[in-house]
């Protein structure tokens, strides 16, 4: 899609390009194009090394729309801090203007309107052009491309190829080092195969064998760190995969491996890199999550840079804690973070950072990448391209409590299974379909493409359901980031409830209504769920009804043809009066 001349003016204005340039370029649209592009690329280059950072691509090798959350609330002590910023509070915190290209990428505000103006985000062909540009400017030998993980999973093409399509995409992009989380849901054997295919390195200091009679008991499964020379400097990169992989995802995928934060061994490796390996710069490539990594910076001494991931936060400016600089580059391929480092006399003297939006309409596609994407999609085009229906309103995923796309999935499950309650997981990955647009099978996979896709239907007692909700709430709203797990609340179909986020653990949720009636602790409810194994907690599992969630959702949308999701949240927040509260405030 080409950007119209009118849009160039919008973009130019949005990017704050001066009028003189606009004046001279107005008659030559191509020139304007270059100006806008220059502004995306524009960077005050510094020092001798550049780290390019990507995270949480979730297998989106094609450009997409991705709307950021309009509700992002945590425990009162964390709300309004980096990691828990959205909308107006985000713009205020980072001193940004609304309705700009950056605001379109970073916030939900005016998303529908701005999406039509600025177009899609990400895509490997566009990322590659950007990466090539930086490599040309800095010299390829001075640049590293680091990937914080959640790369292999999240789309139909990833699922159908068991991750292989995405490893090809990483090799094409030139990923040098990565860590993982959802990667592990392909199972240990497949993970090892994919790492063989990967040209870059897969490292993790926080995964060890935990089968006490096995040879690898308490031994590292992957290399804990790697040392790379760039720009004449020795850079030590330590890997930190998702510490809670075995609780967030089914354990069977990683049976025999133990994860965890392992801050004591992390400190050991930092010290070893500095004292024994004599590196000039220590980088932690992490999938801990943004708020957890801020805590890591408080507890572990001597890390220069943390390249974070997992929580999908766009952070236009680094967060600095105890001298450790933390960056995170959003999600779904929307951004490439550029970190220029000045290393002199074996020390980091300075740095410069920019979170670069991968605006697919402005950054030209690299033809090789277009060919690669086409070839990877070709075998599945017929299935993925099926138009299932049209949505009246925008469908998106991210929000602390409720999202329209999850509401649609819950509706489809309750319709198919005739259940009282449906649980859809509070993953942070997914996709966005604009109001008035068609929903394709690829979009449905973009919301549901996991290796354990079955919807299970079973019975649960009211009290058990209440306890489940409290337990989830404590994982999302715990005041200590180290006790959080980085997901949003499970999305519930058939249920409404009130929540007091600042209340003590186990006492947050009240007024639970099931299909309009108060939850009866002693009553047995018919529950459907997917994306976990809540079914193991229930009784009388109905095997006859078990089916993959993408089939359930696709069938429902096919029958509905026109989807009309209200987007009204089923959760009433008692202690905040808006979705994007400011720090120390109950309001926006």
């Amino acid at each position, binding site marked *: 899609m080409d950007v119209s001349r009118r849009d160039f003016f919008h973009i130019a204005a949005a990017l704050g390009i001066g009028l003189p340039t606009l004046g001279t370029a107005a008659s030559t649209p191509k020139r304007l194009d270059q100006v806008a592009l220059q502004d995306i690329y524009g960077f005050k280059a510094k020092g001798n090394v550049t780290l390019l950072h990507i995270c*949480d691509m979730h297998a989106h090798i094609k450009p997409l729309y991705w709307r950021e959350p309009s509700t992002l609330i945590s425990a009162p002590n964390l709300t309004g801090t980096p990691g828990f910023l959205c909308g107006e509070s985000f713009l205020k915190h980072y001193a940004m203007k609304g309705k700009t290209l950056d605001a379109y990428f970073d916030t939900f505000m005016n998303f529908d309107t701005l999406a039509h103006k600025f177009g899609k985000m990400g895509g490997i062909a566009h990322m590659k052009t950007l990466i090539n540009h930086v490599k040309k400017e800095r010299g390829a030998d001075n640049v590293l491309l680091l990937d914080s993980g*959640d790369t292999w999973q999240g789309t139909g093409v990833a699922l159908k190829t068991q991750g292989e399509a995405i490893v090809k995409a990483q090799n094409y992009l030139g990923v040098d080092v990565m860590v993982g*989380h*959802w990667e592990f849901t392909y199972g240990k054997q497949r993970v090892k195969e994919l790492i063989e295919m990967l040209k870059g390195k897969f490292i993790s200091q926080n995964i060890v064998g*935990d089968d*006490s*009679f096995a040879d690898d008991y308490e031994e590292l499964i992957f290399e804990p760190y790697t040392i790379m020379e760039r720009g004449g400097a020795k850079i030590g990169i330590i890997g930190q995969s*998702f*510490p*809670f992989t*075995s*609780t*967030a*995802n*089914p*354990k069977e995928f990683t049976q025999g491996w*133990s*994860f*965890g*934060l392992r801050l*004591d061994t992390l400190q050991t490796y930092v010290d070893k890199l500095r004292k024994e390996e004599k590196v000039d710069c220590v980088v932690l490539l992490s999938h801990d*999550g943004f708020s957890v990594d801020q805590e890591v910076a408080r507890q572990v001494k001597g890390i220069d840079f943390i390249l974070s991931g*997992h*929580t*999908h936060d766009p952070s236009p400016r680094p967060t600095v804690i105890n001298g450790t600089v933390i960056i995170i580059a959003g999600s779904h391929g929307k951004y490439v973070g550029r970190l220029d480092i000045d290393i002199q006399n074996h020390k980091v003297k300075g740095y410069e950072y920019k979170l670069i939006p991968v605006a697919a309409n402005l950054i030209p596609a690299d033809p090789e990448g277009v060919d690669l994407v086409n070839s990877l999609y070709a075998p599945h085009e017929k299935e993925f391209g099926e138009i299932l229906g049209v949505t009246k309103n925008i469908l998106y995923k991210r929000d602390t409590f409720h999202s329209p796309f999850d509401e649609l999935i819950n509706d489809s499950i309750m319709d198919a299974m005739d259940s009282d309650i449906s*649980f859809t*997981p*509070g*993953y*942070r*990955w997914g996709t966005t379909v604009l109001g008035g647009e068609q929903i394709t099978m690829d979009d449905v996979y973009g919301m549901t493409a996991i290796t354990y896709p079955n919807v299970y239907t079973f019975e649960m007692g009211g009290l*058990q359901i209440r*306890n*489940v909700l409290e*337990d*989830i709430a*404590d*994982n*999302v709203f*715990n005041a*200590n980031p*180290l*006790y*959080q*797990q*980085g*997901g*949003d*609340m*499970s999305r519930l179909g058939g249920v409404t409830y009130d929540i007091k986020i600042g209340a003590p653990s186990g006492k947050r949720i009240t007024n639970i209504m099931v299909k309009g009636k108060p939850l009866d602790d002693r009553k047995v409810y018919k529950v459907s*769920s997917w*994306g*976990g*194994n*809540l079914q*193991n*907690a*229930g009784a009388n599992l109905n095997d006859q009804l078990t089916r993959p969630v993408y089939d359930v959702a696709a069938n429902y949308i096919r029958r509905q043809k026109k989807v009309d999701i209200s987007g009204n949240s089923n959760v009433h927040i008692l202690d905040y009066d808006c979705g994007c509260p400011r720090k120390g405030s109950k309001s926006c």
Partner: protein
Amino acid sequence: MERRSFLKGFGAVSVCAALVPSIVSAADEAKKVSGPNEMSVESALAAITGGKPVTLSSKVSLSAPEIAENGAVVPVKVSVESPMSAKDYVKAIHIFATKNNNVRCANVYLTPANGEASFGTRIKLGATQDVLAVAEMSNGTFLSAKQNVKVTIGGCG
């Protein structure tokens, strides 16, 4: 006996953002059924200290995960600063799971021949709770450290 058979029944449940039902049911059971060695943390401590005070101390370091990967297998490591000489050593390290039916996990009686006062094991936790480590010093004092371990299933990203 086959190891696999032991692991059955401990299949921890993971809901993306939900509870560990196996753990919850274990906790429910614990309320109904008295374990053979049921003992509270107060009684267990008194039995060891004879009523002497137990002081939280930075000399005792307790390492446990913040969030248990599996409530049935929670790694715990304790180390205590001590010269471990014949005159000055750590006589014992005691581990307690403060909310289990029987809070006692292990009583480890060390000697100077250990060289270092350290102990590691893996314990079962029936619910989110504090793990407590108490070091009995050769001079008759008791030092301790504790950490909260969350037993859950968790959210995801």
